């Protein structure tokens, strides 16, 4: 059984670190507190699953069409001149063709 001081320290951490209110805390089960808010973490602070698998979304490279789509969005937001957009798209296309070439070489 935690001492009153230990218990208050846990609650204070939940309120301070996770910005919970007292009302939020009142509605939490012990399981939620122990297994979610106090979940085991790696040295870098990321959540570590009990089976040893780090819960981190894998980084994914965008495809050429996705890169162009993002470029179009940015160009629309910042009113880039058409020539600038065209140049950027040409550079992207060149980058992806060189990537394809590298993959073929492997």
């Amino acid at each position, binding site marked *: *059984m*935690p001492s009153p001081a230990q218990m208050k320290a846990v609650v204070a951490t939940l309120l301070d670190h996770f910005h919970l209110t007292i009302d939020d805390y009142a*509605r*939490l*089960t*012990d*399981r*939620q507190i*122990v*297994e979610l808010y106090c979940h085991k973490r790696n040295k870098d602070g990321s959540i570590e699953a009990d089976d040893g698998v780090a819960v981190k979304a894998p980084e994914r490279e965008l495809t050429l069409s996705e890169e162009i789509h993002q470029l179009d969005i940015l160009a629309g937001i910042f009113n880039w001149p058409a020539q600038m957009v065209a140049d950027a798209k040409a550079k992207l296309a060149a980058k992806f063709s060189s990537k394809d070439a590298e993959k073929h070489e492997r």
Partner: protein
Amino acid sequence: MSALSQVLGNAGAQHTFDHKGKTYKLRMLDQAAKDAFQKHLFGKARAAAMELKSAMDQEAYAEHLAKLNDDFILGEYSLESNRGQKYLQTTAGQLFLASHIFGADDMELVNVMMERADEVVALVKLVLQESLPAASKAKESDPNGQPATTA
């Protein structure tokens, strides 16, 4: 056991129990429920003290009440305490916890249990398993630890 149900707790859908046209919506054992438990147990201790009042002089009675207060402040009436765990092994303790989870008063739940005890007990056990961390189950097999919190 559904991890989703465990992580959502009382923010998720509730387990339901239908009996004679009434649907009971079960609440998981959250911190407010644990507080209700310790205050209920403390209330019983104060009621017991009242019974002893006539057998004690005023000073002894005041000391006894002060001791009750001190114990409460130290968490001696909490669900996890030895006193709380012992109370949970009694019919009254189990009934209090079950009626809190069911959102029904003691007598109402007794009537339900007269007909469907097995189902009520199974559902209360499930709710407690979902509410309490897996680590607390280790106490069940620990002969030196406190008894597990199950109704």
